[in-house]
């Protein structure tokens, strides 16, 4: 009994709060020693309602140990555990062919076999525990202690991770987990109640998890976690992780382990207030590298994190981290990026600060709608209310194949968005686009971009060629009052006004839906006043017409930039000092446009050719396009026809159309024919 009695003081020293009951009794030749303890606890663990029974008899000694609850921290690991074995006391205590039964554990009910050995070697005690259970895997633990209480623990085993995840509550209880883990732990301490050093290694393979909706999941993950720690008033140490296989889905993101392992290493620290990771580093082959830090309060509070000086390639960053956030079908989902960016980002209940330095980047959309090259940008943003500066430069850009020149813009960033530091000008199609105002808001009902400015001297010839519109010459200047972009739609708050051909074109109520998306839809109303017909018809090779044109296009609707509906009417207005004349070629063009074959009569044609121009009183035309059919009208009616041209004086030429309904494609073909066949006539004006 000497060996037994020496064990007891050690157990007593373990106890922080101990209620011990000791009873020795004898029944039918057997002696029974019972020890019970209400609670025994050490650093980070507690066992409650312990009851140890030693029965000695002529058949042999039996030992049993029951624990009501064993818990690590606040998590209950085991409930109603019971160990039973035949006890051999020849050389220390040996509990061979021990049977362990646990009613409830993170692995469910456990039934396992193993052995326990306690012996005294020299001045130190040694405890060994080996355990194997179908649900639990296996564990082997060896502890050596000196009489002074210094101890050294070595443990290793393998176990299904499902129980480990549940035990440590790493994931919500409703999530499914599977996989295997091999583990090793070494620890030492100055006394039984407190560990002073620890080293651990965990190798997981075929790790899987899945949320109930399947949108957070992992498959085939292999990773290795190593670490060490020491207690010097608080726990601190280092940890390293390697991710070598498998894929992780955290909708909308999905990452696969890179061919060369992803490596993370950090220093960790546990204080009374928080868990901290600092001086962390990430090496993500194929993406980049950088540092990180994390602060997690233990008693509630907001998780704080920082990613510092990440130097990454834009292509994988955009494809795997940014693009998944973009709505499918939108512009951002079509873009590819290249270049490099160095950034730092911090979060505290959401993104709180960002600092970036983008170098030699490029953006292009798969459909060719947008291309920007030579992009460099530097700046910072903070959610805390301070403004900061940013610079954006690019070498060249293309929007719908419309080229734009180099850009240098300086911005002021505030928590809600950004605005221009000073106006800037962008070269565009031989002219420029001057930005008086450019701003963005990240969130809220007015989120998106807004701008106002002026279009100055933009070449219509270049624009019409790029857009595959009928050729136009001259330049266009316009005032853009306020143009807003929000969620793929563009709207204006006022009328865009452009000065063309000596007159004014006003574009009001402009709205473009699904801009840069599939089949963009444009709706607007256009007003035209004071357009000089001479330069206009010169541009179109339509034949010569002089006069002043006014009119409007109501409810103009373009689908994928092709007209689908409108109600247009144009007519000349007499202006003092401006003659109203039309050439023979223009008469021919108008006749074709109205549905005729030109002036076909031999004598009629020969007679009219004798005159360079003809005076007219009214000229005009109306087109109502709907469902692919254009309904034509003129400046008046005659019989059942509509008057396009009402001549004046002698010789007088009138053009009257009788075919009011015409297929839109047919009308476009007529316009094309008229513009290409209309010879230019010199009039001397």
């Amino acid at each position: 009994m000497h060996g037994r009695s020496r064990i007891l003081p050690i157990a007593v020293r373990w106890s922080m709060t101990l209620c011990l009951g000791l009873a020795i009794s004898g029944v039918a030749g057997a002696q029974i020693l019972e020890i019970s303890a209400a609670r025994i606890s050490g650093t980070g663990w507690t066992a409650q309602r312990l009851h140890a029974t030693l029965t000695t008899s002529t058949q042999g000694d039996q030992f049993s140990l029951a624990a009501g609850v064993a818990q690590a921290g606040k998590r209950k690991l085991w409930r109603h555990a019971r160990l039973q074995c035949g006890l051999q006391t020849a050389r220390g205590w040996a509990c061979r062919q021990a049977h362990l039964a646990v009613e409830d554990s993170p692995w469910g009910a456990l039934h396992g076999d193993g052995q326990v050995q306690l012996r005294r070697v020299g001045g130190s005690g040694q405890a060994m525990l080996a355990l194997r259970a179908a649900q639990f895997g296996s564990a082997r633990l060896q502890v050596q202690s000196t009489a002074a209480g210094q101890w050294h623990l070595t443990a290793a085993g393998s176990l299904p991770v499902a129980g480990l995840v549940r035990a440590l509550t790493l994931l919500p209880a409703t999530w499914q987990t599977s996989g295997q883990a091999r583990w090793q732990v070494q620890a030492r301490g100055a006394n039984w109640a407190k560990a002073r050093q620890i080293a651990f290694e965990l190798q997981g393979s075929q790790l899987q998890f899945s949320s109930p909706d399947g949108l957070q999941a992992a498959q085939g993950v292999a990773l290795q976690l190593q670490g060490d720690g020491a207690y010097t008033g608080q726990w601190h140490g280092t940890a390293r992780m390697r991710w070598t296989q498998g894929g992780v889905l955290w909708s909308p993101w999905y990452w696969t382990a890179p061919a060369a392992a992803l490596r993370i290493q950090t220093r960790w620290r546990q204080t009374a207030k928080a868990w901290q990771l600092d001086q962390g580093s990430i090496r993500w082959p194929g993406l980049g590298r950088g540092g990180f830090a994390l602060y997690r309060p233990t008693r509630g509070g907001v998780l704080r994190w920082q990613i510092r000086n990440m130097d990454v390639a834009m292509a994988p960053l955009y494809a795997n981290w940014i693009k998944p956030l973009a709505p499918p079908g939108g512009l951002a989902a079509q873009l590819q990026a290249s270049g490099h960016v160095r950034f730092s980002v911090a979060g505290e209940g959401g993104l709180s600060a960002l600092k970036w330095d983008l170098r030699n980047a490029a953006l292009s959309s798969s459909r060719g709608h947008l291309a920007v090259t030579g992009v460099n940008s530097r700046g910072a943003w903070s959610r805390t209310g301070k403004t900061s500066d940013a610079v954006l430069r690019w070498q060249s850009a293309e929007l719908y194949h419309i080229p734009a020149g180099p850009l240098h813009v300086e911005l002021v960033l505030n928590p809600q968005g950004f605005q221009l530091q000073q106006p800037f000008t962008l070269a565009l199609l031989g002219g420029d686009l001057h930005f008086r105002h450019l701003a963005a808001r990240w969130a809220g009902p007015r989120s998106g971009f807004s701008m106002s400015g002026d279009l100055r001297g933009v070449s219509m010839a270049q624009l019409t060629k790029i857009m595959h519109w009928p050729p136009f010459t001259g330049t266009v200047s316009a005032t853009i009052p306020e143009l807003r972009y929000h969620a793929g739609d563009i709207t204006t708050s006022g009328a865009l006004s452009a000065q063309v051909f000596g007159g004014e074109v006003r574009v009001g109520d402009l709205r473009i839906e699904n801009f840069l998306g599939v089949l963009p839809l444009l709706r607007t109303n256009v007003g035209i006043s004071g357009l000089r017909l001479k330069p206009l018809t010169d541009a179109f090779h339509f034949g010569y017409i002089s006069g002043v044109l006014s009119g409007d296009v109501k409810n103009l609707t373009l689908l994928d930039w092709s007209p689908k509906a409108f109600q247009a009417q144009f007519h000349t207005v007499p202006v003092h000092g401006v003659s109203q004349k039309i050439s023979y070629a223009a008469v021919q063009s108008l006749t074709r446009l109205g549905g005729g074959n030109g002036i076909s009569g031999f004598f009629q044609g020969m007679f009219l050719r004798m005159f360079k121009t003809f005076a007219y009183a009214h000229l005009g035309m109306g087109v109502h396009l709907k469902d692919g059919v254009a309904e034509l009208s003129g400046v008046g009616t005659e019989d059942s026809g509509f008057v396009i041209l009402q001549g004046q004086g002698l010789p007088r030429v009138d053009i009257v159309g009788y075919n009011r309904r015409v297929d839109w494609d047919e009308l476009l073909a007529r316009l094309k024919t008229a513009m290409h066949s209309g010879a230019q006539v010199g009039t001397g004006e």
Partner: protein
Amino acid sequence: MTKQGWLKTQGWRSVLALGLLMALSACVTVNIYFPAAAAQKLADQVVGEVYKAAAKGALQAPVAPAVSAPAPTAPARSAAPATNSLSMASPYHAASYLLAMGFSAISGTAEAAANLNASSPGVQSARAQVEALATQMHPYFVSGAVGYTANGQVTIHDAAAVSLPQRAPLNGLVSSYNQALSNLYQQIADANGHPEWAGQIQQTFAQAWISKAPAGYWYQSPSGQWQKK
């Protein structure tokens, strides 16, 4: 004719005139109800083409369907309040009732023609967006990862039916597709001058998405139970 007889005759004439007036006023109100047959025909056509485009995987500008089925309309409804014929004791009420009923019987055979226009640019653009997204959604429908709800939208049925990389954009796709579908229903309603029809059009499409769905597609019954075509 006695004075009493004359008064009686005049009274009946007044009653008749009043009844005629009421009957005529009743014929002014013509309520055009939702053109269910035309909507069903349009839905079948659009849904069929979207399924076809999605299976083909090609994005093409949709051709405007030319649906011009006459819409069933409500018979010209009398503006007169419904009255209990048993309570009509006076000749005045009797005449009014008979005239109104008679006119209703005649006008009940008349139909106000109403076509569902699906050729507006707004509808075409909305359809193009639906078809573009339907092409991306197709593998998810085929695998059973998503299915149609009973109200003409889509929802995730079994995300695990597709691989992890395929699952990543699933939530966003479903959300965008539902927005595109809602936009389509609203654009059809708007194109027909009845924005308030969007809900009924959606319900009509809901039936079409399910009835014309290829074999293997999943859908929800009105009670929310999942079923496989």
